[in-house]
């Protein structure tokens, strides 16, 4: 019974395509992506910038529509939200206190006040924010604001948690600290997570399974299973001999893609169409 639920597919992504148009040119962000994420897995997606990983997450979150293909999230309960996102950058609402921010999802769903009090109190405590419950975001550091974002997502008690490079704006020390806290909060009930990052170290530190994506168009290049036990010691892990091997392996998959994405970025540099550009280009022949 336990085995069945553990291996059961939580998120099923099938033939997912996403195309959009930029100045009459079609850009393929995702090209026929297919993958299954089992229940309770901490699934990490690494890829070069512009590979469509954020687009993928936003499609899973329902913030964007795919061009074709399907995303199916297996729901265990009808009154639980399908997903909650921890956004990249500053997504905490500046006009609400820490408490109201953390309670945002619960209030939106009309959860009874007593339950809101208990749940929000619990997660503010877990993220070390209890004494800042009445503070406004501008009074907090960037790391503290991102803790609010974590508390908000976890308090909403969703089927799956989506995280879009949540720590990319933080300095190294804060990042390590927040990775530790994130894992500690997550260990409580090990919900299925889809985590986007461009940091190989972060992927190895946090993930059970890592998907390396190709540069645009985004396809699955390789899946790598991370052998480390849970609960993990974020700092101690780096001491393990396999850690370096894992990082090295993933870098092997990623290197070509990063180079490719750099080339692509150079290729789409805006060309000059102005009078001056035309004059200088045809200066000799005309």
């Amino acid at each position, binding site marked *: 019974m336990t085995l069945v639920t553990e291996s059961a597919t939580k998120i099923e992504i099938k033939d997912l395509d996403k195309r959009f148009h930029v100045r009459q040119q079609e850009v393929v962000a995702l090209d026929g992506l297919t993958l299954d994420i089992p229940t309770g897995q901490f699934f990490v997606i690494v890829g070069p910038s512009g590979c469509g990983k954020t687009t993928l997450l936003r499609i899973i*979150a*329902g*913030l964007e529509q795919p061009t074709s293909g399907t995303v199916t999230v297996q729901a265990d309960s009808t009154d639980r*939200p399908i*997903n*909650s*996102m921890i*956004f990249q*950058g*500053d*997504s905490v*609402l*500046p*006009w*609400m206190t820490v408490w109201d921010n953390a309670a*945002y*999802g619960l*209030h*939106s*769903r009309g959860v009874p006040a007593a339950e809101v009090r208990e749940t929000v109190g619990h997660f503010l405590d877990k993220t070390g924010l209890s004494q800042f419950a009445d503070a*406004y*975001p*501008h*009074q907090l550091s960037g790391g503290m604001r991102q803790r609010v974002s974590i508390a*908000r997502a976890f308090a*909403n008690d969703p089927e799956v948690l989506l995280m879009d490079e949540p720590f990319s704006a933080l300095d190294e020390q804060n990042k390590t600290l927040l990775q530790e806290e994130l894992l500690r909060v997550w260990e409580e009930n090990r919900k299925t997570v889809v985590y986007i990052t461009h940091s190989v170290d972060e992927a190895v530190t946090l993930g059970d399974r890592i998907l390396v994506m190709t540069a645009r168009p985004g396809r699955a290049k390789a899946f790598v299973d991370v052998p480390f036990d849970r609960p993990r010691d974020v700092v101690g892990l780096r001491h393990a001999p396999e850690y370096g091997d894992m990082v090295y392996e993933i870098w092997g998959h990623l290197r070509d893609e990063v180079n490719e994405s750099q080339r692509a970025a150079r290729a789409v540099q805006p060309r000059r169409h102005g009078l001056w550009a035309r004059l200088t280009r045809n200066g000799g022949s005309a």
Partner: protein
Amino acid sequence: MAITGATERPTSRSHVITSADGRRSRVRNANQRDRLLMIGSPLLLLVLWELGTRSGVLDQRFFPAPTAIFAQMLSMIESGELWEHTGASLQRFFLGFWVGVVPALVIGILMGLNRGVRAALTPIVSGTYPIPKSALLPLILLIFGLGEMSKVVMVAIGVFYPVVLNTMSGVLQIQPIHYDVAKNFQASRWRVFRTIALPGAMPSIMTGIELGAGLGLILIALAEMVGAESGLGFMIWNAWELFKVESMYVGIMVIAVIGFVVAMLIREFSRILMPWSNR
């Protein structure tokens, strides 16, 4: 020798403390000096003005002595005349303020939230915005007559434009990520409006209200100069007709004070309304 050595060392150590203390006290002195200058400079101007008129350097017909103006003000307060005019102006201003603010907020928010509404109304709002509101006074008098309504409408027109434009741009400036948060956390339309659009636009809205109130005050004075029997604008105009220059100055000063107090009240209200703002 031993005594000098012992006294020397504490002196050098205490020197460090005094320099830090000195910096703090210098800042405090600078603050005190600023405050003194802020009160002192207008007072000095009044004293110079008084001396100027008494010595005959300034023409008393145009620049009556401040003491004469204050005496006039006191007698107008005693007679109740000043209260009557101030009360009339304030009432019109207050009514006109709300008549202007409420539709401006509704239209501004709709323009900010809805692309179609924005496309439809922008040419009308932007097209009529540059018209000097004072140029509309004859038309307003024609439509609404010489009574209270024309004054209220003039104030409302003045308040409307800054509020509608600032409200719209305030809503447009809200970070897309905040809408994403609302959507991801399943906020209803009403909740998106109440928890994202309204507070997100609030700083800009309050700036618009402050600007609008200033413009409304300009227009109430103007409107009362034409075909009114009461109000500060009437009082100033009447003083010109009767060549009671002191009364004219009293009117100008009262309007200045009202403008200052209204701006202070709006700013204080903003602070209460937006405790999250770190401005």
